[in-house]
């Protein structure tokens, strides 16, 4: 797998740390809205071992309309600053707009994380032109920044597989490198809690497509509704879902809590036989 300038082995699990340049995202509620606070967040997650930062300028939920110009103002110069300070860090930008994608790639981004499932058809062309990676998500065809409402699927996992693979093949046809295409079922995007639980339970079917799988589970509403917990109380539930996806072989984890997720994925990776223990001597000395 190649994310921009960085190559990763097939046995590696990667932490993608969320960095919001927004005043209103659900988890941090604007904690990193100020550029220096966002930059401090980058330093923190790099120190915690995150391979990837995912920088976003627009919260996913409905809210004040953010123009492309405003979105670029929030993320482009920030990407350039992070690139200058962390040459080896993979920089992903969470955007569905080709215009924004083009500007952030010129500023040094390695990945376009299209959380809205190809809503802007030209995004793949931008990824190809800059030789960056693209995340192909499943949203069931909803409009960006809308909540799911009475959406039904004959088979939500089959829909996620079909749509993300079709998106991946469209990206490939547009010229994105095969090793730079990732698929993501997009928990809670175009999905109710039952859908997200089923996608988690059957995430192995997405892994079986052969495309590397990204999962974005962190503190989401499907965790909150399942356990009856508010935002801020969902870490344990998030890590339980993370374990299930890790056992099936999901490769990238988009997270708020890097340290806890890394421990969880390392543990499951070792249970799965993909990672040796760090240092085992008990009983074999």
């Amino acid at each position, binding site marked *: 797998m190649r994310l921009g300038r960085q190559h990763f082995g097939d046995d590696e699990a990667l932490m993608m740390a969320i960095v919001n340049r927004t005043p209103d995202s659900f988890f941090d509620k604007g904690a990193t809205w100020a550029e220096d606070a966002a930059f401090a967040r980058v330093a923190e997650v790099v120190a915690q071992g995150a391979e990837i930062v995912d920088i976003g300028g627009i919260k996913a939920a409905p809210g004040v309309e953010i123009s492309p110009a405003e979105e670029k103002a929030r993320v482009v110069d920030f990407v350039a600053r992070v690139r200058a300070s962390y040459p080896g860090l993979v920089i992903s930008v969470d955007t569905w707009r080709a215009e924004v994608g083009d500007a952030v790639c010129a500023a040094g981004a390695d990945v376009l994380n299209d959380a809205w499932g190809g809503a802007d058809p030209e995004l793949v062309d931008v990824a190809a032109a800059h030789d960056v990676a693209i995340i192909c998500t499943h949203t069931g065809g909803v409009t960006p920044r809308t909540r799911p409402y009475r959406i039904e699927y004959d088979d939500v996992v089959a829909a996620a597989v079909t749509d993300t693979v079709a998106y991946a093949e469209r990206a490939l046809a547009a010229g994105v490198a095969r090793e730079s295409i990732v698929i993501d079922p997009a928990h809670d995007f175009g999905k109710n809690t039952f859908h997200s639980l089923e996608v988690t339970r059957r995430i192995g079917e997405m892994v079986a497509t052969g495309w590397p799988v990204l999962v974005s589970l962190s503190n989401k509403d499907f965790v909150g509704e399942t356990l009856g917990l508010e935002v801020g109380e969902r870490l344990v539930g998030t890590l339980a879902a993370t374990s299930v996806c890790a056992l099936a072989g999901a490769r990238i984890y988009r997270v708020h809590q890097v340290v806890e997720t890394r421990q969880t994925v390392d543990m499951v990776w070792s249970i799965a036989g993909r990672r040796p*223990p760090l240092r*085992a*001597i008990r009983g*074999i*000395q």
Partner: protein
Amino acid sequence: MSGPVALVPGVPALLPSYASLEDPVADLRAACLDAVGRLGARVRVRASGPSGLRVAAALVAASGGAVVDDDETGVLVVGNGSATRTEKAPGHLDERAAGFDAALRRTFTGIDTALAAELWADTACLGELPPLGEAEVLYDDAPFGVQYWVAVWRTA
């Protein structure tokens, strides 16, 4: 015996199947490979059981040699002192362990096999070895409460 003889402990952590990301026995492994590398391409192994045989076979293979039953170029003996040197040792602390190991350090003849069993020592194959004082000792430590020696004798 003719040709060089080496002693290594039968530590399963030396096996490839028990590899960790960080090697907990890196120094011991280096000493073992150094010793086994001096035995030539055909190595006869003497060990007290299947676990020790596996460790020996892995070390010989890692050194590019082969385990043989005859026409050997060197002999690899597997064994170690007590496993009761500290409270965290596999057999817990036994106050007699340090003295037992000190005696082995002087000579391998006349080992008290009953005491060896009580101290979880792997000494069944050590009795025929010359004293450590006549060997080049590459390792002599008890990092996990188990007494290890790695040594090479150049016999005539």
